[in-house]
């Protein structure tokens, strides 16, 4: 500061001060640029820390009353708590004992008005498990198929830079079906769910392929086609031929109120969700 006041008083000696002022005029923009770069770096670090790593969550979706929240509580708390219709998404951490890893499982509500919430979690999803109530699927197969169609359409419309989440169809509530001599209850449930869903999805596919749809309002985002059901082969819908990826099927069951057996490395007891746990471990 003294230099500046000295500068104003000592007018006849400018050459003493010019190098410092020149240095200042050079330093100032450099310092400003450095500060800006530092701020941007700090900001980028903060933003990156906030957004979770991509592809580490498993989404549980399905129609209302399929049993998604019950599955989540069994996986997360090792006991099946009584549940009712969910009004909002639950996200919990599930420990997989045999591989010592943890997964984040997201349970999205199934009510038709709020089921679009799964779209928010899709970017972070590694896999999507679609839970179907195997005991009532023959009655409300069309509604289940509509929901599944929406999910399959969302999966196939993801940008190709991201890896597509793998799809698993869970035939839940197998304990309500009676097994026969040839096939266990899980097999029966899986077959029933597969045939009914294939039939309904084929109906939807043929309607949309051959039909002329009505445009949506605001034709800028022309998303009037609901695709997502394309298949190789002769075009008829089959899960094995779906172009969106591999679809796995498993059968599960839980019983409310009973504490599930803890599956440790030493003794793996078979409880209703063991096939789901195995699939999760393969995933992790």
């Amino acid at each position, binding site marked *: 500061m003294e230099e500046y006041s000295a500068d104003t008083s000592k007018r006849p000696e400018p050459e003493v001060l010019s190098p410092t002022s020149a240095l200042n005029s050079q330093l100032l923009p450099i310092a400003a640029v450095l500060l800006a770069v530092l701020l941007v770096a700090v900001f980028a670090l903060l933003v990156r820390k906030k957004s979770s790593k991509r592809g580490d969550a498993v989404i549980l979706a399905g129609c209302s009353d399929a049993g998604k929240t019950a599955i989540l509580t069994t996986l997360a708390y090792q006991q099946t708590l009584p549940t*009712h*219709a969910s009004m*909002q998404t*639950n996200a919990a951490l599930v420990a997989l004992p045999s591989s010592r890893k943890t997964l984040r499982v997201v349970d999205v509500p199934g009510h038709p*008005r709020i089921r679009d919430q799964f779209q928010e979690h899709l970017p972070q999803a590694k896999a999507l498990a679609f839970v179907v109530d195997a005991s009532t699927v023959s009655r409300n197969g069309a509604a289940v198929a509509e929901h599944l169609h929406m999910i399959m359409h969302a999966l196939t419309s993801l940008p190709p830079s991201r890896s597509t989440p793998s799809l698993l169809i869970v035939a839940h509530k197998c304990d309500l079906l009676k097994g026969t001599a040839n096939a266990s209850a899980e097999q029966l449930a899986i077959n029933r769910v597969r045939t009914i869903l294939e039939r309904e999805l084929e109906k939807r596919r043929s309607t949309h392929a051959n039909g002329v749809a*009505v445009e949506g309002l605001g034709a800028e985002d022309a998303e009037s086609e609901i695709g997502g059901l394309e298949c190789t082969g002769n075009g008829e819908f089959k899960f094995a031929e779906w172009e969106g990826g591999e679809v796995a099927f498993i059968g599960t069951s839980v019983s409310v109120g009973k504490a599930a057996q803890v599956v440790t490395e030493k003794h793996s007891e078979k409880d209703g969700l063991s096939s789901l746990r195995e699939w999760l471990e393969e995933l992790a």
Partner: protein
Amino acid sequence: MLDHCSISHKGGVVLWSRSFTPAASHTAASSASPVNSLVREALIEGRSSDGKYEKDGYAVKWTFVNDLELIFVVAYQRILQLTYVEDLLNALKTLFIKLFQPFLTTFVASLHVTTTVKLSASADTHSSWNFAKAFDGWDAVFDKLLRGLEDKAAQERRTRSGHVIRPMVEVTPPEEDINIVPSQSSDNVLDEEQIARNVQALKNRLRGRGGPPGRRGRGRADVGNGRDSLPGSDSETPSKSKRKAKAQRKWGDEAPTESDMASLDFSYDSSTSDSHIAPPVDLSALVDNGSLGTRTQDGLYEVRDWEFAQSQGGKSADDVIAEVLKKSGQEPPKPSSGSLGALGSIFARLTGSKVLTEEDLKPVLEAMKQHLMKKNVAKEISDKICEDVGQSLVGKKVGGFQTTNSAVRQALANSITRILTPKTSTDLLLSIRTKLSAPVAASQQRQPYSITFVGVNGVGKSTNLSKVCFWLIQNGFRVLIAACDTFRSGAVEQLRVHVRNLGMLGVDGATNSKGRVELYERGYGKDAAGIAKEAISYARDNDFDVVLIDTAGRMQDNEPLMRALAKLVATNNPDKIIFVGEALVGNEAVDQLTKFDRALRDFSAASGGQERGIDGMLVTKWDTVDDKVGAALSMTYVTGQPIIFVGCGQTYTDLRQLRVGNVVQAILSD
């Protein structure tokens, strides 16, 4: 007395529940439980703001705790009138939170994991979540609370019944003594109701006096029949029976009670009547100074001209400056009054601990309500939506850089999206193909898919019916149009013109669509239900796929016409009943839809068929409202049914599907 009580988390996990009867415990475990139905039908649909919900003979009351995301529900038999339920819910709320706050916060946090972190050790995961142990002791507390409240309610009932008997006894002298004027004990307050009752007593006694003793007995019986305030000799039993019996009809020849007089008093508020001050009116909201007209030289006030090109943003520079000056003039008072409060709330928000209270929310919700009404949402609906949003936000924590305004706006956007998202499939093509491809018995023929268009006069039913017909023809269906509007002159000719036009428009390279669309009409003056029945059987015999039934427009409170419509619906059982409404309608939309839906349900159930209501809606004249599309929101809120199509013009291709995102954006944009 109660049937079921439960405490659960909004994510679906039930933390504690108790059923008081075996039947209740059986239904509570199934998916038809009152809690499940409550959540599914009232809470998620957002139609819960009048505070009560009834289903299957149960009445259900509930309350929220928003920061811990809990729902407290009590269900009891609808016929009981329990007065202590609200107090029970509030007491439960405070007690539960006080006793179990730390466990609840960890539980809620465990359900909102945002990133995958490694759990420290697998050992403590399964030992820490012992739910039964966490809530033990709660059962005893609940029992004590319930017993206390029930005892208090029983106590109140007893004292209330004790009070009623006494004034009756004092007012009535014995029947035989007709010369005695009714004497009041000195400590009775002589209010208007007492005076009226006394006058009535005198009249009755005087009337009973004229006649021989034998007839007097009968006279007394006659007099005693219709009057519920009879001061007869049996003073105690009428009071008790009056309380238990239903309130008898007031025939208007009795003196009105005080409550009646208070409800009929439409003069100014008695509290302010002495000062004669009118209720405060916000004058600045009534007049927009920028749009005032001009005064001519003679002193006449002329209204300003309508400007087309600049109507959107064409304010002159003077107006803008005037507005800015006015706003800045208002600003200084605000910081001085709440400067520390504003700073404090900013700090609280940044540290993530600001909790929304009712006072914070009230001005914001009020502004949101005005905004919705400006966008042509009906007043009742905006009220209910804003109340709902307020209820779901009270007590919620707002963190980061989010202001109250943006939190409310976000919640409002979610609520509106939820209301507009259809809960049933709106895919008409799929439903038609499903019905047409359903297996049919060998002896019968395939039934066509029938759609009925209903609505008030002049909304565009016939026009939009022909648009839907064009779309169906494009998809390869054979359509029969049934002209069941036998009232309006020219209705049948109008449909004939449409059929001729549609026949001339070719599809898929064909020169015309002669065989694809036909009109079934029987002239004017006949019964619409009969014509519809014949049309459907004609369609079945001649292999038509879809039957579109055009009905006459009718006002919603015209009972004979609504009955006729319900008869058409009951005899023909159409697969879809589409209500056609226009986008310009304002508050009237609520009235139209409620009455149509109600009338259809009541009358169609009464005439022996199953109960049918409105299945979907078609909003017309959408091109006349550019972004004031609130009518769509009002209509879906009232019925809960989706909007299947939107009509936006007068040519055959002006039919669109509703995009929920666009409508929400249009409603919330400024």
